[in-house]
């Protein structure tokens, strides 16, 4: 590179350059003149205006919190509401000796160790000039006492604040979720989604369930109040108020009384129930047992309660309806039947053997039926009614996974239903691709699909794993002859300002292209389950409407029960899960239900009575007079359901194929 020397440029260029310098100088002068003009405008011409503004700038803008939207059930019964209560708040920057002040306040109101702990937490999170809550929900008497002493309590304020309340507590915990204090993570999210203006002065945000999913609807938009303040920043009087826009109200498709009936039928047992209106996709009930009290979380749960909930072996915090993955057991058979009819694997009247066991060609391993003597011979309809395992082993073997998988996938099995709740599990609808991916870290022979894998899948065991919500959704799709909806809890959203009612999901998303005669056939077969000879015939007694259903028994515990060994629970946890899916009235179904009762044995014994009670209530309004009586009748000797007994373990045996169980 040549060293820069004195300019070689001729004079003409120099003139050019000097001209540009002059232009730059003039440009800068001009721009500064613009600025000077702006200053003259602000500081001379508009001086009086701004001077007044500055003097009144003892006026501060205070955000006014909107009321959070209400949540009601389909009949207008309130499930989530707000109530007003007093809180005691301290602004440290305005209080001289904070510790002395707290001691002084302790003589006026009762301060528990929990209040103090929470107060310390708020102090560390908030800025010094922001008020921190010392005690929530003061009694009227306490509020009056503090107010009367207000003159000697600088920086102390009693404020009316709205609190959230869930009157049905455990019953709605897995549906509504809860709101909680806005934490650092929430703050980040709010900033990222550019919603900071919406959360000025806000303390709480939806954390789980509908409260979280519909946060934007429920939250509302804060208003402003112009408040004149004294030199200490204390509000003297309100000058102008821009009212907040309150949150929108949600009306659910859910029927809280139906939910309550289901809950009572469950009693202390664990499990889940989902009921869907097949004609609208509205979720009529969604229960996960056990639940928890959502109120505990609103202002920060205390350590002991959290420990209790989190370490409970029954896992009350897990939403089983949404996240519990269970093999569907024999409730899978009607859908297998649809696949068989649609693919032409079997004719409607074709009769096949249904012996006591099934063996693969060239193998001595016996896939045994739950009924050791077998069911003789049967057509598809009878095979569903009596829940013949060998019939479906053979059917699955004949069809192969490639013909089963696409049809069942259309019923939404193995994919998210798209319900308006967060955290839905996907489940497993087995296929060759799935297996290769699932075991991709293992040796190739474990990844390859083995024809025998399909056998136990045929009766809803093996790799199959679905959520109760998926089973209810699939049942609803079948009941509605292939009309597919996104299941939704929220039916309407009412705008708080205009009163305009917005309907959610009124139209089906798509229509499955299966033959009507096949729907009719399978639905009729499911009616047969509740008729003499069917596995749930006892349950079908005294019906005042036509009901169709299917029992099931799931063998594998899929919910992770935590690492801790619990001797008391273990024996019970080894028992099978009881399944029942049903819909009614059979001619034009308005309710489809899936019930699972964990570790309760045969499907017909535990889950079916719950479904019967729920559907009875929904269609006839009859509350089961005595739940125990109902359960007793049903629990009496039933035809054992399929795929359960020790001997007929349908889990693939090492002798026949070497698939690792998921």
């Amino acid at each position: 590179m040549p060293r820069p020397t004195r300019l070689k440029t001729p004079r003409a260029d120099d003139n050019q350059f000097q001209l540009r310098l002059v232009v730059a100088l003039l440009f800068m002068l001009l721009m500064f003149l613009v600025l000077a003009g702006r200053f003259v405008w602000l500081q001379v011409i508009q001086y009086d205006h701004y001077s007044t503004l500055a003097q009144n700038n003892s006026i501060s803008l205070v955000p006014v919190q909107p009321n959070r939207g209400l949540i009601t059930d389909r009949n207008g019964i309130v499930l989530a509401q707000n109530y007003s209560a007093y809180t005691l708040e301290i602004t440290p920057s305005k209080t001289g000796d904070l510790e002395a002040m707290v001691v002084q306040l302790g003589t006026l109101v009762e301060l528990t160790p929990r209040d103090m702990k929470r107060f310390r937490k708020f102090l560390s999170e908030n800025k010094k000039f922001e008020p921190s809550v010392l005690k929530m929900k003061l009694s009227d008497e306490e509020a009056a006492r503090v107010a009367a002493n207000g003159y000697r309590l600088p920086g102390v304020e009693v404020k009316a604040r709205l609190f959230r309340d869930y009157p049905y507590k455990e019953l709605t915990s897995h549906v509504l979720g809860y709101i909680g204090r806005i934490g650092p993570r929430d703050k980040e999210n709010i900033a990222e989604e550019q919603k900071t203006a919406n959360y000025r002065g806000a303390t709480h945000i939806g954390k789980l369930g509908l409260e979280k999913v519909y946060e934007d609807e429920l939250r509302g938009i804060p208003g402003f109040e112009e408040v004149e303040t004294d030199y200490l920043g204390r509000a003297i009087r309100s000058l102008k108020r821009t009212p907040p826009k309150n949150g929108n109200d949600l009306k659910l498709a859910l029927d809280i009384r139906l939910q309550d009936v289901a809950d009572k039928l469950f009693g202390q047992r664990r499990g889940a129930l989902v009921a869907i209106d097949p004609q609208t996709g509205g979720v009529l009930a969604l229960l996960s047992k056990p639940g928890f009290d959502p109120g505990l979380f609103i202002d920060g749960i205390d350590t002991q309660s959290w420990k209790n909930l989190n370490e409970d072996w029954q896992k009350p915090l897990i939403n089983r309806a949404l996240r519990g993955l269970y093999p569907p057991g024999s409730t899978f058979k009607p859908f297998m039947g649809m696949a068989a009819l649609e693919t032409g694997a079997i004719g409607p009247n074709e009769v096949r053997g249904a012996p006591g066991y099934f063996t693969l060609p060239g193998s001595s391993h016996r896939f045994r039926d739950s009924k050791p003597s077998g069911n003789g011979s049967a057509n598809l309809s009878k095979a569903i009614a009596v829940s013949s395992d060998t019939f479906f082993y053979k059917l699955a073997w004949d069809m192969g996974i490639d013909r089963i998988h696409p049809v069942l996938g259309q019923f939404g099995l193995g994919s998210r239903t798209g319900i308006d709740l967060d955290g839905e599990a996907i489940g497993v609808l087995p296929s060759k691709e799935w297996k290769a991916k699932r075991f991709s870290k293992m040796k190739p022979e474990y990844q390859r699909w083995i024809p025998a894998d399909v056998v136990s899948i045929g009766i809803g065991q093996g790799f199959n794993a679905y959520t109760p919500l998926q089973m209810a959704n699939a049942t609803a799709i079948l009941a509605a002859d292939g009309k597919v909806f996104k299941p939704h809890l929220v039916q309407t959203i009412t705008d708080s300002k205009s009163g305009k009612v917005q309907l959610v999901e009124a139209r089906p998303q798509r229509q499955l292209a299966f033959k009507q005669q096949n729907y009719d056939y399978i639905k009729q077969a499911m009616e047969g389950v509740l008729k003499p000879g069917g596995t749930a015939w006892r349950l079908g007694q005294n019906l005042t409407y036509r009901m169709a259903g299917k029992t099931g028994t799931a063998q594998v515990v899929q919910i992770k029960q935590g690492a801790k060994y619990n001797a008391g629970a273990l024996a019970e946890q080894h028992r099978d899960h009881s399944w029942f899916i049903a819909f009614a009235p059979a001619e034009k179904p308005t309710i489809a239900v899936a019930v699972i009762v964990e570790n309760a044995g045969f499907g017909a014994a535990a889950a079916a009575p719950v479904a019967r009670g729920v559907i009875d209530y929904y269609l006839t309004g009859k509350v089961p007079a005595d739940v125990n009586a109902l359960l007793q009748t049903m629990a009496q000797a039933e035809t054992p359901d399929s795929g359960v007994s020790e001997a007929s373990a349908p889990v693939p045996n090492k002798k026949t194929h070497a698939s690792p169980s998921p």
Partner: protein
Amino acid sequence: MHPHPLKRLWHSIIQPLDAWLMLFLGLLFVLSLLVLYSASNETFGKIDNKLVYSALSFGILWLLAWSRPQTVMMFAPPVYLVGVLLLVAVELFGIIVNGSQRWLNLGIMRIQPSEIMKIALPMMVAWYFQHNEGQIRWWHYLVGLAIILVPGVLILKQPDLGTATLIMTSGLFVLFFAGLSWKVILGAGAGFLASLPLVWHFMHDYQRRRVLTLLDPTQDPLGDGYHIIQSTIAIGSGGPWGKGWLSGTQTHLEFIPERTTDFIFAVYSEEFGLAGNLILLLLYMAILSRGLMITARAQTLYGRLMAGSITLTFFMYAFVNMGMVAGILPVVGVPLPFVSYGGTATVSLAVGMGMLMSIANIDRR
């Protein structure tokens, strides 16, 4: 006869410095200490820090003023390259702060590579033209533009529209002084105005909101609009003569956000009024005029281009900051040169001033 050793030391210290620039900068420094004291609620914490980083900045300024410009110029290509590589690294591994990816975590410290580019980019363009002196064709301007656009686009992607614009403009100033055709300049200006709707289309939400806030600050009176509303009130209520030092109510009642950094001009303006504002404008204009004089006298092409670019960039910082606080430009994070509190900005400004003085020195040696 030998002069006193202290006198000789003094002489060697002031020898590389430009007397006029030092005078103006010194006045600006005194003024900035006064404002900072008032803005930080009459406490000394920030004053102490400012003294420390100002001393450091002066050291850097002196070192650059003492160096020969052509020596410093040699560093242009490597520094530029490292800067571009760091920007790419930010793109790949950067930390996201406030929704944009500007920082690079080097384990021991986090750096913002766009800061390096503030000086490296105009240096690189000036170096390029010096390198091709005497044989400059139209396509040299295209290459110059490419040198500007590569880091410019990388910073734009972070996304940091404000910094990207400032840095690219400092490069464009070099092109301007290098004799870019007037037709091209006017054409590009017209083209830019015509493409504004398109620019709007590609803007991020927060950037659009800043522009909207400028047009109607009352939209979010507790948020973005708040800064502009409160700073305009501060300036306006200062009146012709100001409320007096330490007597700004807006400032002392904490209505001015970021009042020691980007919005420090509101504090100054409230307390010293229109008179103070005009004095500040004059002071800046004096620095700028001196800068242009140095540019005019520079003896190498590189010297001319760098001096011109440094001067115009300095002007742009001052103008954009005051315009923003006075509510006629959107809110972008630009400090008021040598007045706003902040070490990084001061150091890079000092580097610019040091280079300017070293260019001024060349014919004195």
